[in-house]
């Protein structure tokens, strides 16, 4: 049985080796070498100047993930509680923007948030700008705009895993909790929340990882002032600061930090039994 299965796994293993393991190895080699491929740690020691970019990336990604969680969790609960017809429609509405091109969506936000964009025009029309005595409210080019872009783009990745866990929750567990004397708040805290943690964990992962490494959102909505790790890495490969070795080193450090975060989180997930006793 075991041999048979591993036989079927061969194509997958080859695929993983070619497309995942070898690229990572190439990245590691680049990270530890100079342009002449001599071993060095300079790529890492130089990285200190970019500390602010690291901090900003993780800070904005963290905020975006939290906002997604705060919006996504209640939405998932609400969807799971409604009838199947409502669930299908809601699901379609959540998926719909994802079928549009990513850049197109982000460009749309640009024209909404610009100093002369739709929102500012609206504020002007209702007299809000006159009231405040300004020509426009600056929105584009702020970290808020970047977070908004992340939330808008990645929210479905938070909702879907949480929703799919909650909708499959055994209803009799909730009845059992009520039967044992728990009011709605306690049913949520002691049963729904701990049992939906796996969905939360995968939602957080699926939002945090692309957020921390995004470059298009920060460049388009950040107006060049909100440089993030993704932008930094891109510059090392395509931009003026061409240095793929440094780029590889930054990617590696980012990857290590993300992996450490995920391991810590998953460990927390396994300890849910202790966590819910708090």
């Amino acid at each position, binding site marked *: 049985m075991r041999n048979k299965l591993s036989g079927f796994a061969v194509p997958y293993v080859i695929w993983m080796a070619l497309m995942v393991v070898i690229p990572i190895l190439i990245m590691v080699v680049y990270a530890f070498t100079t342009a002449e491929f001599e071993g060095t740690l300079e790529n890492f020691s130089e990285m200190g100047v970019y500390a602010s970019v690291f901090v900003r990336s993780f800070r904005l990604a963290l905020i975006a993930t939290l906002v997604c969680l705060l919006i996504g969790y209640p939405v998932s609960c609400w969807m799971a509680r409604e009838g199947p017809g409502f669930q299908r429609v809601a699901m379609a509405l959540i998926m719909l923007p994802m079928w549009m091109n990513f850049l197109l969506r982000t460009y749309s936000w640009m024209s909404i948030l610009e100093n002369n964009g739709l929102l500012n025009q609206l504020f002007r029309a209702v007299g809000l700008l006159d009231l405040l005595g300004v020509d426009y409210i600056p929105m584009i080019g702020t970290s808020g705009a970047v977070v908004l872009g992340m939330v808008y783009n990645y929210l479905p990745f938070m909702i879907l895993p949480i929703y799919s866990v909650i909708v499959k929750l055994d209803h009799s567990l909730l*009845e*059992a*909790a*009520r*039967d*044992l*004397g728990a009011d709605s708040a306690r049913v949520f805290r002691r049963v729904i929340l*701990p*049992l939906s943690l796996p969905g939360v964990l995968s939602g957080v992962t699926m939002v945090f990882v692309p957020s921390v490494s995004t470059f298009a959102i920060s460049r388009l909505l950040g107006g060049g002032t909100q440089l993030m790790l993704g932008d930094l890495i891109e510059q090392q490969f395509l931009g003026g600061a061409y240095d793929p070795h440094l780029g590889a080193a930054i990617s590696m450090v980012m990857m290590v930090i993300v992996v450490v975060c995920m391991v810590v989180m998953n460990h927390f997930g396994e300890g849910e*039994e202790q966590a819910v006793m708090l």
Partner: protein
Amino acid sequence: MSKELIRLAGCTMAFDDEVVLDKINLSIQDKEFLTLLGPSGCGKTTTLRIIGGFQTPTSGDVLFDGVRINAVPPHKRTINTVFQKYALFPHLNVYENIAFGLRIPKTNAQGNKVKLPEEEIDHRVLEMLEIVNLRGFEKRRTAQLSGGQQQRVAIARALVNRPKVLLLDEPLGALDLKLRKDMQNELKRIQKAMEITFVYVTHDQEEALAMSDTVVVMDAGRIQQIGSPEDIYNEPRNAFVADFIGESNIIDGIMRADGVVEIFNRRFQCLDGGFAPDEAVDVVIRPEDVDIVPEDQGQLRGTVTSVTFKGMQYDIIVDFYGFKWLIQTTDLSPVGSRIGIKIDPDGIHVMKKSEYSGMFGDYSSYSEEYEEISDAGCVSEEESGDEE
């Protein structure tokens, strides 16, 4: 015997015009073991859920200790439930599952929320584990337990809250036969020891007879009969109850006088009375109440059409004038042989005609209902013509 604890008064439950419960009236006494028995879809689980508070009747009242509790949510009732699939919390271990209810702060007489002290929780959980024979399993995850053990955790989790009433929804349905028998005794023992009212839902008539003080037989959203197991078995009110509880031959009869019933144009002595002269009735004759005698001495004569060995007895199907009876006997009568039967007056039970008349109690399709037995000599329907 004792005071009434729960009363359902004219409870009707309808989902989108589909009536699931039809004006149920039911009184449950304190400390009794009451079983709701019926086929699936009869409304027994709905009745249980109304008592538990998970459903509110469309009309009618639910009274607990004389107080109307229609609108009281489940978590405010001193009633606990053992769910059909146990519904143990998968993220908690055995100990925490049982402690779940105890950890919830309760409102005391002064209206303050009070938490049980940890020592008391610990004491009560361990005591419960003792009662259900699961000491040493505290730290196990529920997924690591067998079906019977999960069952006992579910019972402990409900009973540790010292409810006035325990509701059990087919709790033994998922267990194998041997374990079921053990758990039946176990449940009965726990109920006696803790002096709690049990309301038990099952479709297994044997289980109902073995465990209950009172059996409530339900079908089609209505209560068909309420009584002790003996009453239900010996004095079924209609053909449905007679058929559902045990095996029954149900034959059309005519009541000629008090104590005299006519079946197949022959008069039989019986103990029932109070019917109109010449009233058409249903007659129940249990398979074990029939004595087999030589053909010429029998009150009725028939032909054996099939024999099944059942261990303790033979189940034989006998054709009387085209109507097939099930008879249980320890003496083998071979297929095709002619036999006579005798029935004592107390073996005959006469019932009023009901909407169930004619639906049950004929064993013509016996060999289809049960495991087909290799029996080439079986007399076919056509050959056994009506002798009348």
